[in-house]
């Protein structure tokens, strides 16, 4: 059974993470510095998240924005994966090299841009499990 029971659950968890990251004083400015639009496309459950690191948000204290659904303009980078793979990734328990080799992940677009995000989002590996616990999903963050 997939770790996210449906798309709404995925949005609550991964979207919830981006709600924190977009305001995070360390991660937020670095994401904004990436200056591109990232589209995350999930299967099992079907969902899509667009992270806009290109257009500066109007809201003060917010560095990037995210929305449900596809990007209105073509994203520079699209990552495709199952929800379970995404969950493992944000827990910091996914070996990206293995995931790419096993074709559990497709990285569409400039590879350098994809890889440039990895050091930026490292703090999220601690934030995500704590957020799950705070939301009452202790079983998802063992």
């Amino acid at each position, binding site marked *: 059974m997939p770790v996210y029971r449906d798309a709404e659950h995925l949005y609550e968890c991964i979207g919830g993470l981006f709600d924190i990251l977009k305001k995070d004083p360390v991660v937020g400015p670095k994401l904004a510095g990436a200056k591109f639009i990232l589209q995350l496309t999930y299967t099992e459950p079907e969902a899509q998240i667009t992270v806009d690191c290109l257009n500066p948000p109007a809201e003060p204290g917010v560095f990037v924005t995210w929305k449900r659904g596809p990007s209105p303009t073509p994203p520079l980078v699209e990552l495709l994966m199952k929800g379970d793979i995404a969950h493992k990734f944000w827990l910091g328990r996914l070996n990206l090299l293995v995931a790419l080799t096993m074709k559990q992940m497709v990285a569409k677009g400039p590879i350098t841009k994809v890889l*440039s995000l990895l050091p930026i989002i490292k703090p999220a590996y601690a934030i995500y499990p704590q957020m799950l616990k705070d939301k009452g999903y202790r079983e998802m963050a063992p």
Partner: protein
Amino acid sequence: MTHCVMIRSMISFPEFFDFCLPTRVVAQVGAVSNVGTEARALGITRAFLLTDAVLVKLGIAEQVLAPLREAGVEIAGVFDSIPPNSETKVVERAAEAARAGGADGLVACGGGSVMDTAKAVGIVLSRGGSILDHQGINVIDRPVTPLICLPTTAGTGSEISRFAVVKDDASHQKISFVSDHLCPRLAILDAALTTSMPPALTAATGMDACTHAVEAYCSQGAGPFTDALGMAALPAIVETLPKAVADGADVAFRAKMLIASAMAGAAMSLAGVGCVHAMAHACGGRRNVPHGVANSILLPHGLGFNAEAIPEKASVLAAKFGIAECEKMSAGARAERLVAAVRDLSGACRVPQRLRDVGVVTGDLDAIAEDALADGAMFFNPRPAEAADLRKLLEAAF
């Protein structure tokens, strides 16, 4: 078992590795004469040849076309306008010509740029759209137009690899395509096709092969199969490259280099590379430094940096470079000797030794370090590095 034997036999046994070599390899002097039969066996009825103008002038392209015709394979066209660092617009033009000619198979005869262009043409022919639509990792998820490669240099490993790299003519950045489906169906290693290569190109491409063998072995993606390939290739390159540079007409030296290069290329394709390639890509992007030359200049510096993180592997490399009694040295002394051995090899082959000698200026170093840090090759580097670390290495290589 002595300590020395243990060092020499060290290979990686990681928890996970993946090994797939879909390319069939045929090696023989004169094997080009069989390209038509091989093409037919792959179901190719209309072949499109990708090559460069120099190879057409030298008559090498005709050595490929004649056996294709003799075997009853129609020639869908010949595209010989491929520059050393091919670009997306070249790919689009070649794909258009191949489509217009009704090609159902591709034959690439040339160096890395020609073979990478052919792979990209295969993507556009089979998948449609612009080549930019298909960049990334695992985006190509089905077989593409069959490709036969006949390398005329010994270094890139493109004839056997799952990578294609071309320059985006709009952004001037290198863009990459990674997929098992990009492995050519057949690599014909005919050393006679490489004898016209001038000494400087022989040296630079040979040092590229050397860097593939070394960096694949040191890579975080290394596994037992890639170690075996890379470490069999390395001593052959160390021994043969200076001879091939000095006596390019000797087909035996050429054959050994061609085979070692393909083996190192296979190791690189599956294990990945590291900071040397990352910095070389950045130098190529900023200042058009030829890839093999940049790798050659940067290899001692990158290897010296990484040796600290992988002392056992550095010991194996020292042995492969022929350093006597390396097992009796301290790790530091061994690393120093290893770096010196790499310099000796490139020096013996008369490859430029400094970045300043190949068009890089001091003002470039910060930008090159930043570009290198974001390069995909860094993903596999055995030692974590920051931009400041790479800047220091570039400064030392300057």
